[in-house]
């Protein structure tokens, strides 16, 4: 790209079931304020803003208009990005492109969702009215379908999926922003939790959270002047796929979008062995089984090897490649922000600002976004500018 861009600061709210104490702009404002403070900037120092949100979940339109207040300045460039679950990562990539273009030196990207103010499953059921609406059944139904296929195709077991749930919610204990923190969660408790849609249980699913996240992107010298160890963007890749669920057989097992996006991103960043060369990964896992499918699609292991990876603790905090030290989407899921949180968490690891969830000496990190049926975003960051 034309010039190098880095994440120089991040901020997020404490994600939770319901934030009755703030309205939507106030929620965004909290994250914006935190990100600006983390970057050592005032709102007037930012050249442009990008907002991410799935407004139909709250039953609204053009939320950037109401949320304009949240950024603390008026009459500035502001665009709203909306691409389903990938909105957060999409917005970050959009911000990266805007800063790289030379139009803006500093771009703030914010995302949020206030699920408590709407009806998410109703929103999710608004798929294609002729072909998909009767079978797409919100989130749980279509995941159950694809997870069943995955289990049969790759042999992943409910026990392995439960290990993912345990890792996520135990990691979340060390993340003050996380919604679901369960220090005593065990595989048994996951397997005893309520069955939602075979084989998905309650504790296999991500929650719905009210929350916001923001990060600040800066180009070249602007970045180095703001952060001693900026998280330089070394690669981005986006892949979408066909609109109808029926055209995506073996959706999770194949996940050709994530496979191709990560292959492209690794090529751009010069990564040939992701398991060894990456220090930390924040991947967007809407259900436990998906994380296992992502290990394979991301090239962390060979096909069929994901189950063993989780059983051997290779992706635990003290493993070969810690995956989701933040607790992931399984622990906090404000949809419009979830992808952004992945990018923010991947960046703050490089900044060395991970607190109790810091991966020591993290230099190369990966963030992924997931949405709709099988859309994928991949962002690779590094302390090395390249």
């Amino acid at each position, binding site marked *: *790209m034309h010039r190098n861009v880095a994440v120089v600061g991040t901020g997020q709210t404490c994600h939770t079931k319901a934030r009755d104490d703030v309205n939507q702009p106030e929620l965004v404002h909290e994250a914006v304020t935190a990100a600006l403070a983390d970057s050592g900037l005032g709102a007037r120092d930012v050249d442009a803003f990008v907002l991410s949100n799935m407004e139909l*979940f709250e039953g609204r339109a053009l939320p950037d208009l109401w949320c304009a207040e949240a950024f603390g300045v008026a*009459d500035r460039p*502001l665009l709203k*990005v909306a691409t389903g679950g990938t909105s957060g990562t999409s917005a970050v990539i959009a911000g990266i*492109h805007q800063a790289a*273009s030379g139009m803006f030196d500093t771009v703030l990207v914010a995302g949020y969702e206030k699920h408590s103010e709407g009806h998410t499953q109703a929103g999710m059921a608004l798929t294609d009215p002729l072909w998909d609406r009767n079978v797409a059944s919100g989130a749980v139904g279509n995941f159950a379908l694809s997870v069943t296929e995955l289990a049969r195709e790759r042999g992943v077991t409910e026990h392995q999926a439960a290990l993912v749930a345990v890792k996520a919610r135990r990691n979340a204990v060390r993340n003050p922003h996380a919604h679901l923190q369960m220090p005593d969660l065990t595989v048994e408790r996951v397997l005893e939790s309520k069955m939602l849609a075979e084989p998905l249980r309650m504790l296999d699913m991500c929650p719905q959270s009210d929350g916001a996240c923001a990060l600040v992107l800066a180009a070249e010298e602007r970045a180095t002047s703001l952060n001693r160890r900026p998280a330089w963007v070394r690669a981005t890749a986006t892949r979408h796929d066909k609109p109808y669920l029926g055209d995506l057989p073996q959706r999770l097992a194949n996940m050709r979008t994530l496979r191709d996006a990560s292959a492209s991103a690794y090529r751009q960043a010069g990564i040939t062995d992701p398991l060894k060369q990456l220090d930390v990964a924040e991947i967007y896992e809407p259900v436990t089984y998906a994380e296992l499918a992502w290990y394979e699609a991301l090239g962390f292991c060979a096909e069929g090897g994901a189950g063993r990876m989780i059983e051997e603790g290779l992706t635990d905090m003290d493993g070969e490649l810690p995956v989701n030290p933040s607790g992931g989407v399984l622990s906090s899921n404000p949809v419009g922000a979830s992808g952004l949180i992945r990018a923010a968490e991947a960046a703050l690891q490089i900044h060395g600002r991970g607190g109790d969830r810091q991966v020591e000496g993290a230099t190369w990190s990966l963030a992924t976004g997931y949405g*709709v049926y099988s859309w994928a975003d991949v962002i690779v960051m590094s302390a090395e500018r390249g």
Partner: protein
Amino acid sequence: MTASALNTQLRQVAIIGIGRTPFLTENREQSSVEMVADAVENALEDAGLGLGDLDAAVTASVDLWDGRTASNVALTEVVGAVMGPETRIAADGLAAFSHAAMTVAAGAYETVLCVAHCKPSESDHLALTAWTLDPVLLQPLGFDDAIAAGLQAEMAGSEPRAWAEAVVRARAKAASDPFGPSLHVPEVDDVLESPQLAGPLTLDMAAPLCDGAVAVVLGKSKINGRDYKESQAGTRVAGIGYATETHYLGERDLTGTPALRAALCRTGVDVASADVIELSTPYAHQEELFAKAMGAELETLNPSGGMLGGAPPFVAGLARLVEATKRLKKGGLGIAHGTWGPAGQAHCVVALEA
């Protein structure tokens, strides 16, 4: 004077192809996807390219109007984004174009498709605009885009007759557009005597809403081995600018239009040097208001007739870009404008150089 040299990367971005569907009061024959497919096909043909030549797509649409979550899901195949990148900007198509131009300037993509669509016939446009407003402080007062515009018109303190004349002028110009909705050209008194809409605005002073889609292919103006039709590839992006005002109607400078001024300033363009200016005006009083803010002469505005001749919401700004591009002669300077939100809360301006 040409546009600011600050935007050097941007000025390598060229418009390679343009395409659109007819703008119809009601398109009963086609779904949104089919409309988009037609617009894209036209733009690609104009560019001499195929779907596979695109590196990315940037779309513009609004979920609530499409009645679908992540409404861009439906478009993936027709915008060439299967196993490719697509991003959606939920605003007027001109904002999506501005973002697309930045992705090319950044070197992220070489050839990008930008497409906007809306089918207001499948929804209650004004009722939906109420859902953009603060749900506690503004929405319960019964505000929608029309009422906000009426408030702005009242404060503008001009003669409604002038606005009615703007409508008649626009409809007369648009009458010769083979892709237009073929609306009749009213008399000034007809417009003034049409039912009251809000404040001093009558029904006929609102831009007629249409179903339609517009697509633009953009890319680097110099790409080896690519043979673009000269007329389009010669039109380069000279500058872009967009801005959003504060939300609360009581706090805004409704007649000063600061966001429009900020957007215009960002482009670095000298309006006095512009040969073609196409402004978006969802309501007739805004032609005078926006022209004043830009320092543009009313007489030279909107040779196409503009929005008052009939346009789809969220597509109108991109349609203005297409109309300006068509009319630019070699060496000419053009300005296209889009707006969204109550009483023009947000604006986008794109300057073009042929």
